[in-house]
Each structure stands twice: as structure tokens, then as C-alpha cells.
């Protein structure tokens, strides 16, 4: 079954012909070529596929593409400006060692963004809580927490 859906992706309104059984991560990665969203497990266990749908961080591997009809989706590709400058959260991850192999990074950054958009002053415990569904095998998480904390000092959000 194919269906036409309309949604806002990284600020751009679009409509797209999809198959009913596609997940959002499949649509983004395989059909639209937005490879920034990663799949680490496909089963909701690792958070690599995290994107923001209507302000909430969700696992795109367990989200049917058809269900984003009418919604607003943000992916890692939408964070940096069109001029190529990094979003403060991305910059902070770069500067503070929050990225090693980088496979978890897009998901981590999206979870962090959803958190900071809602709570710019999140403390360490709140950060841990918000990132609990995002697994990282490389960093031991410490520099990731530091990256999120340091965003505050970087002039806050740009929206």
C-alpha cells in the first residue's frame, strides 16, 4: 500500500509517496538519502535513530513514516545552518570531545536538543535522564554530558 503524506521536514513543507510499512528511519535514510539519522539496532534499544517529532525525541526506527503526516520532523541535517555553521549543540559536542566514532552522535545530539529546547538549564541528572535511551560505546558518556552542559555557555539556543 502506498500513501501520500505531507509533513514538515527540517523546516520545509513537503509531500512524499510512501509505503505503509516504512518506518520513519527507513524513509529518511533509504528513500530520502538523509543518512545522518543512524540505525544501531532497529528495535528501540540504542537511540542512534533519534529524531524530533513535534518537539519530542523519538526513535525513528519504531515510528511509522505514515504517522508523521501533518507533523514537524527535525533531523540532524536540519540543525546546522544553510551556511554550514554548526548549531551550538553540535559545536559543543565537537569542542568537548562528545564525539569519537560518531555513530551515536546524531541521535545523542537530537536527544540533547529536545531536552535543551524544553529546559535550557538542565543539570547533570536531567541530562542523564534525557540521554538514557542513547547508547554510546566509545566515550563513557562523560564528555557527552560536558558537551550538553557547555551549550549554556555558548549563547544558548539558536532557533
Amino acid at each position, binding site marked *: *500500500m502506498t*500513501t501520500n503524506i505531507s509533513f514538515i521536514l527540517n523546516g520545509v513543507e513537503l509531500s512524499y509517496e510512501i*509505503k*505503509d*510499512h*516504512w*518506518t520513519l528511519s*527507513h524513509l529518511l535514510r533509504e528513500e530520502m538519502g538523509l543518512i545522518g539519522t543512524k*540505525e544501531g*539496532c*532497529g*528495535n*528501540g*534499544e540504542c*537511540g542512534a535513530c*533519534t529524531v524530533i517529532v513535534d518537539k*519530542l*525525541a*523519538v*526513535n525513528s*526506527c*519504531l*515510528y*511509522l513514516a*505514515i*504517522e508523521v503526516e501533518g507533523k514537524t520532523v527535525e533531523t540532524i541535517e536540519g540543525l546546522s545552518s544553510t551556511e554550514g555553521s554548526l548549531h551550538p549543540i553540535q559545536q559543543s559536542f565537537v569542542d568537548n570531545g562528545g564525539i569519537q566514532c560518531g555513530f551515536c552522535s546524531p541521535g545523542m545530539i537530537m*536527544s540533547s536538543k*529536545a*531536552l535543551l529546547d524544553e529546559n535550557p538549564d538542565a543539570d547533570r541528572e536531567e541530562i542523564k*535522564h*534525557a*540521554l*538514557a*535511551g*542513547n*547508547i554510546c560505546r566509545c566515550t563513557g558518556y562523560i564528555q557527552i554530558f560536558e558537551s550538553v552542559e557547555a551549550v549554556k555557555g555558548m549563547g544558548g539556543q539558536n532557533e
Partner: protein
Amino acid sequence: MRLPRFEYLEPSDLEGVLNLLATQGDDTKILAGGTDLLVRMKKGLLKPKTLISLKALNELSYINEEDGCIKIGARTPIADIIASDLIQKEAFALFEACEKIGAISIQHYRGTIGGNILQDNRCIHYNQSEFHRSGRQPCHKDGGKICYARDEADRCNSTCQSDGATALMALGASITLAKKGTERVVEIANFYTTDGIMPFAMESSELLTEIVISIQGGKSSYKRLAYRSAIDYPIVCAGVFLSASDTKKDEIEDARIVVGAMGRSPLFLVQESFSLKGKNLNDTEVFKKVADSSMNSASTFAVHNVGSTLEYRCVMVSEMVLQALKGAAQAVVAAKG
């Protein structure tokens, strides 16, 4: 990881859902948050022809206080329950349980309370890839005649690891099941079958619409044991509700002890609960005895199928019950001032 193909339907209201359920066959499944259903579909554990999405049913997402009851719509996200002052005040065990589910960034926003209650039972022999299962005889739950978790078992003893259901049973909650033209209300404690193949006593044409917790002036507590702080199902959990007598200070009037992740459903321990009536709220010795007895009662249901060792899980029943009893008792005492 791809999903098998299916047809997706998105009725715009409750009536539409019920109509569809009435006409579709067993091959139809309700899709709420999908965090349980889609995982099972990816593993090939079920291949529904049709999914009926509750996406448009905002009418099933609410937390209200009405007639001395808390009413929760089945499609309410776990995150809303955690954020609700009403739940924190009057159904603390449910708050504690929901907080522990999966991980905030993910399951809490997508996962719903209805889906949490109705998530399928789990078993380490069953929740495996299609290929893994194809290498051997199917077990009861997979359509076969044997069980890998318990020799000679005549039925499936897969484990209910729902945090929400355990807490709700302790709170004495009931649920509303709607079907085209009718509706029935069941106490959660009476909602389960005796076979893990299909653990819920409900028909495929029924929709879970509401959860009702009556506010009874007591306090509740929920404790669970898992290896990690997130992305981890409980290997044992316990929910306890206690209320104190109006006349005799510190005397327990009503008690409900429920043990979860030890059997096909959360286990309401009637005897142990009853034995607390009239006991002192501060009597830790009594709590210990009751906790040990809970362990003995709950142990008979458990099979070795959700990680850890059976022996450890059994021993931990007593610890979790004890902690939950203490938690609830403290809350009651504190509330009385």
C-alpha cells in the same frame, strides 16, 4: 531493519476504530505507540495484515479526576502520566512504575499506558529473531507443543514484565474494554488468562479505552529490580497499596500486594495482603514475614525465562515486597502527619 508489509488504517474517532475492529479478523492489531508491537513485528513474532492506528484518537489521551476516581485514557503517553500531579499524589506507585519504563527520550513519549498493559509477555526463548526460532521446534507461544523454559509444561509460562500493569493491579485499578455497541469494565486482577500464549482475557474485537483507579485514601509504592538504570525490564517488581484505619492510628485497614515479572501476569497475593489487615504500620517484623511469604507464593509461578537466575529472582521477591511495603507504610504515616 524492515517491517513486514501490512495495511495501515487510521480511523478518525473511537466509533471508527470499533467499527473496524468489529469487521476485521484476528489478523488486525491496534497500533498505539508501537514500541512493543513494532518490535515484535520486526522479529516476525506476528504478522498482522492490518494495523489500526490510534493516532487520531486524541479523545483517548487524558488524565482526569472524576467521582473519586482517576480516569486515564488508554492512549495517554507514559510521559504524561509521569508529569501528572494527580498521579503523583493519588497513585504514586503508577508514577514510580512509569518512570522506570525503558528510557525517557523514547518509550515515554511514544509508549502509551494502554500499550504498556497490553504489551505481550516475554521469554528469552521466544523473543528471538525469526532465524533463531526457525532452528528448532516451535514452542507453545510460537504455535507448537513444547516449552523451552519449563520441561513438560502444558502451556506457555512467558513472563509479564509490564511495570504499569503491576502498579495498576496494586492500586486496584479496573479497565474499560469497548466493543462495537457494548462496553465492559474488568478489574485488572481478573483480566488475565492462565496461558501465556494469549495472556489477556479479551477479544480481538475489543479496544482498551480507559483505566480507572478509585481514590481510596491510602498510599502506594512500587519497587523494581533491574540490572541497569534504563532500557531494562524488571526481573522482579512489586507494587503495594496500604491504607490506615480512620479510628485506630497506625493500623492497616486495607492492603494489596502485587508481584510482577514473576509469572504470566502480575500476581495479586490475596493471602499475604489479607494478613496485613489490622497490623501496625510500623511493624517491620510483620512486613518481613509477609515479604517472605510473598516470595513463597510468587515463586511457584516463575520459570527461568527472563534473564538472571530463577533462584535469585525468587529471593528478590521478598526484598522488593519488603521495600514496597516500607515505602507505602512510610507514605501513609507521613500523610497522617
